[in-house]
């Protein structure tokens, strides 16, 4: 059952169309919303939260209509904005307790959930210090914690890895994945980096200039493009010729040979070719294409 559905959702600003007749269904699990900067990702999230009104079209989140039923909807969702939004003079604990109460949790529950949530996102002693002195990574964790503290059914995470170093990115992506696998909360997460989302998402929705380019599961993307990566001790050209001679479709990528995978017999044929020619088999693995490869053909400018 879809968690979010939109019908011909359109948002026009004077001179700019941020969303142009977007119709898409988003299911449970972790869904990535991908697009270049300015593609309309943040606009879509703000409209779904009722923070901004759509020019035309309708949408439902968790069965609530975004315009008629916005208040009920906002009780059940969490939102992590893209930009800085944390008051520097409060501690993480104070802020998250306060925001938990702003989501309707009674005082004691707010305290308890704040302690739990901050621990889940990995903030420990520093949570009592004013946020003004936090690193970007810590701030992102506080932003995530406030989106989760009231135990929503779906969270909207707008560029959660923005400004993080590679290690911080990995940790944040791990956390995002856990929001669904461990916490059971559906996630809509935006990024302009396809590679990031491919690692943690079940489904990916790609928009460009406010238009839906594609919406499908990550598995669909990666399986359709599966190839077999082969590395033999022989010179790559000789090996390629040999494999082609055995009826395989082969292309070269540096020292690697990529054979189109037609089922299990492809593995057998590679084995036979290397045995017949006396080549050593260095590598034989099924290769997953990155989603980005798929999109290169469809839209070169999606990948930032």
């Amino acid at each position, binding site marked *: 059952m879809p968690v979010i559905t939109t019908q011909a959702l359109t948002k026009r600003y004077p001179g700019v169309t941020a969303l142009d007749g977007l119709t898409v269904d988003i299911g449970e699990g*972790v869904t990535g919303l991908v697009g270049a900067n300015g593609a309309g990702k943040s606009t879509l999230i*703000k409209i779904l*939260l009722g*923070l*901004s009104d759509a020019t035309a079209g309708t949408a439902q989140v968790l069965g609530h209509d975004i315009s008629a039923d916005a*208040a009920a909807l*906002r*009780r059940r*969702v*969490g*939102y992590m*904005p893209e*930009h*800085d*939004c*944390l*008051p*520097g*003079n409060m501690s993480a604990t*104070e802020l998250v307790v*306060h*925001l938990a*109460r*702003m*989501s*309707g*949790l*009674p005082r004691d*529950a707010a305290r308890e*959930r704040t302690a*739990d949530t901050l*621990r*889940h*996102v*990995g903030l420990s002693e520093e949570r009592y210090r004013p946020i003004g002195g936090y690193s970007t990574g810590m701030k992102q964790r506080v932003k995530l914690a*406030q989106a989760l503290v*009231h*135990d929503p059914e779906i969270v909207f995470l707008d560029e959660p890895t923005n400004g993080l170093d590679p290690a911080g990115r*990995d*940790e944040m*992506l*791990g*956390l995002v*994945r*856990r929001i669904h*696998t*461990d*916490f*059971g909360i559906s996630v809509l997460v935006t990024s302009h980096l396809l590679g990031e989302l*491919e*690692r*943690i*998402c*079940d489904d990916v929705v790609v928009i460009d200039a406010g238009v839906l380019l594609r919406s499908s*599961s*990550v*598995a669909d993307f*990666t399986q359709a493009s599966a190839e077999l990566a082969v590395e033999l001790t022989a010179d790559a050209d000789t090996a390629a010729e040999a494999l082609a001679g055995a009826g395989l479709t082969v292309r070269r990528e540096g020292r690697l040979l990529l054979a189109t995978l037609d089922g299990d017999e492809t593995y057998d044929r590679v084995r036979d070719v290397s045995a017949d020619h006396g080549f050593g088999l260095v590598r034989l693995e099924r290769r*997953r294409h990155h989603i980005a490869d798929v999109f290169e053909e469809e839209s070169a400018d999606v990948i930032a």
Partner: protein
Amino acid sequence: MSSPDVQGPDAAHSGVIHDIGYRGYTGPRLERRAIAVGLYTHTLRGVFGLGRSAKSKVVPFGMAAVMLLPAIVIAAVSVVGSGQGLTEPVLAYTRFAMTTQASLAIFLAVAAPNAVSLDLRFHTLPLYLSRPLERPDYVRAKLAAVATAVFLLLAVPLLVMYLGAVAAQFDAGEQTVQFLQGLVGAALFSAVLASIALVIASLTGRRGFGIAGIITVLTLTYAVVSAAQGFVAFDAENQALAGWLGLLSPMTLVDGVQVWAFGAEPSSPAGPPPGAAGAVFLAAVVLLVTACYALLVRRYRKVKV
């Protein structure tokens, strides 16, 4: 199907750091009204610096002390003076706010930006507005909190004065009526001053501008209006015009209502002209507060999130 090749190391990695089971929340969730009350108390506490650093308590409690001190002195004078024929406090309850208006202005100049400017400066509003509260709820909670703070600042000294008067065994009935009149006046002062101060503070995320703007507007208008009143009333001998001028500053405006409604003595060179003219002052108060509220709602409808 998720991608197991990536999940493996990630899950293991984060699992090491925070491997504590997640618990959902199934308890009660408060309604919008109760949430707005929560924002109100949070703001009220913040205005007095409660739960904040010691530094942020200095101005609010300093001003509270500065205002409480004369009240204590007046109460003491009442008690001591009752033996020497004094029959009422040396300062009328309705004149207390006008007398201590400098402290009021300083208090407001810090309180109002504290209540709204920080949310603007740190762009915190999206965090509120993605929750059940609507924009007008936010405005009402902030306005009510600052007004309550100002009211407390006035009401507590008035109470001290009243207790002094009771201890001095002044005419209890008369004192009670005057004290209640003073409280009504204090409520009007709170509503008017808080509305004006919040409108100014909501225009800027910079606390400094808010402080400067509020002090300037509150003290400058009073200085100009009372000087003009003095000139018109005594040099030009036009009492009626001098009275009308009182409409132009928030302090003299509310004072005019007190003069009209309670027969209080004006605290500026001229009160409103006698008769129905005073009602205009009350209408102006209502209009001013309504207009400020409308401006705030309008302002917050436009804040980008």
